[in-house]
């Protein structure tokens, strides 16, 4: 990539940090206010106080951590599967004209399949086997990965490639130093989007298919009308998603893409 094609960081004037934090806190505050209003206005939404008082006990139970662990594993496993499938599909679409067309019809079709339908189908094929959850999530996520990665491959810099040819950088060195670094930003964008997506699909899939995991627990709590528990599960879910975004994905991305100069 040359200087001109490296996406520059936003040069926009930034608010002072303190102000930004204050506004962000106000944003979080407004969610809580909404919740409080909802809690007092209807009898179905459990009030904040009740949920918070049950939170420690909820977090102390091994069952909760088991379910969270099972689901996390499924998310990561099926996301890996989706990344591999998506990368392969993107490579085919990029490499060969005819099979690329064939592949892009598949991808276009797969992207249009509602996750509900995929989950119900998986029930027929895999019964209640958790493999079905992996299949559903990977199937729903891979076309998105393929689309993003194809875009990345399309934007591979010809000039840098020419340099690689002139210096005969070939094989794995070519892949490591010339090709993959150019795909990395796209890979991250795919991982970041599909990670969140995968979590949502996993919950849905477990809701229909599972006999374990957070989605299933969700559904069970709801069926028994234990709404406080529903909200507690929701809190755990949101917390996991936000923590992994801010503690794992973003730092990793910053590390890998540190060559981009502010």
């Amino acid at each position, binding site marked *: *990539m040359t200087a001109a094609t490296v996406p520059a960081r936003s040069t926009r004037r930034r608010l002072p940090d303190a102000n930004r934090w204050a506004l962000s806190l106000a944003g979080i505050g407004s969610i809580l206010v909404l919740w409080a209003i909802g809690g007092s206005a209807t009898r179905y939404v459990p009030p904040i106080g009740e949920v918070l008082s049950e939170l420690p006990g909820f977090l102390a139970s091994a069952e909760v951590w088991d379910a969270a662990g099972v689901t996390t594993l499924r998310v990561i496993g099926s996301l890996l599967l989706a990344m591999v499938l998506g990368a392969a599909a993107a490579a085919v679409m990029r490499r060969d004209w005819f099979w690329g067309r064939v592949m892009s019809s598949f991808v276009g079709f797969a992207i249009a399949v509602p996750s509900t339908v995929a989950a119900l189908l998986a029930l027929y094929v895999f019964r209640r086997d958790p493999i079905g959850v992996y299949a559903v999530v990977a199937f729903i996520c891979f076309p998105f990965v393929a689309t993003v990665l194809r875009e990345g491959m399309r934007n591979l810099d010809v*000039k840098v490639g020419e340099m690689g040819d002139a210096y005969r950088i*070939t094989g794995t060195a070519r892949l490591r130093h010339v090709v993959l670094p150019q795909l990395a930003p796209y890979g991250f964008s795919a991982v970041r989007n599909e990670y969140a997506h995968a979590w949502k699909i996993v919950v849905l899939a477990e809701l229909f298919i599972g006999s374990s995991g957070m989605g299933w627990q969700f559904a069970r709590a709801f069926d028994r009308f234990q709404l406080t528990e529903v909200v507690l599960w929701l809190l755990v879910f949101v917390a996991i998603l936000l923590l992994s975004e801010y503690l794992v994905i973003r730092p990793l991305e910053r590390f890998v893409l540190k*060559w981009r*100069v502010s």
Partner: protein
Amino acid sequence: MTTNGSLLSGEVNLMSNAVDGVTPPFLDLRDIVIKHGDRTAVDGVDLTVAPGEFLALLGPSGCGKSTLLHVLAGLRRAHSGELRLNGSPAAADLSGKLRVGYVFQDHRLLPWRTVAQNITIAMKSAGVPKDEWDARIDRYLGMLRVGEYRDSWPMRLSGGQRQRVSIARALAVDPDVVLMDEPFSGLDEVTARAMRLELSRLREVSSVPTVFVTHSIKEALFLADRVVTLSHGPARVLKELSVSLPRPRQYEDPEFARLEASVVADVLKEWELTDAAPGAPERRAS
């Protein structure tokens, strides 16, 4: 054609392009034709590069200079013609036969690898022994006065510094030939002057044959042992000129100015006339 440059420099007859009977030229191109699809970009060029020679290819924009360099670098095949390497025929193309140091118009450093890593990757691919890497990096970065940026990201350097690193990379691979494609045209005039001076100093240390593409007459005369002038595209050789001015050369030197005037007189008519000619749309290669 005017020949008022002959007092200062020996003019080489186009037809007898032998350098001096005994040692065969390092590179010998005869009647090379290169095409982009159906369009001819280079139309029968004869060219020699003597061992250790610094050759400047001078031609108007779009005439096919970069295309010719691509063939020399083995990035592209010639459509027809003869290529000889040290006197023996090289088949259709040069890929794999020459170790090339290439300096592009833009730096083409990998922005995601540090300066030192960029050079290392090229050296490794060129088969330079591992135990020499460090010393070479230091040596060439030092020679080009960018030693302190060894571990920086390329995008943190100025345009001139990046181009210095790019030249260091080209020299560090221990090349058989260095190819430079308008390496200073993206720089401001002051930086470009400094870089030219640097490059001509480097010639005192290393004598790798070098083909330097430019459309600046001044630059060609300042740097080269020999200047080959090309026509507008599709390129043909118009004229060859040995430059025997003493080094370091100076733009203000009256002899330099006279030589420049004579080259300008030679090419002006050709380039101007033909640049406006129909059917010669100007498009940048890369």
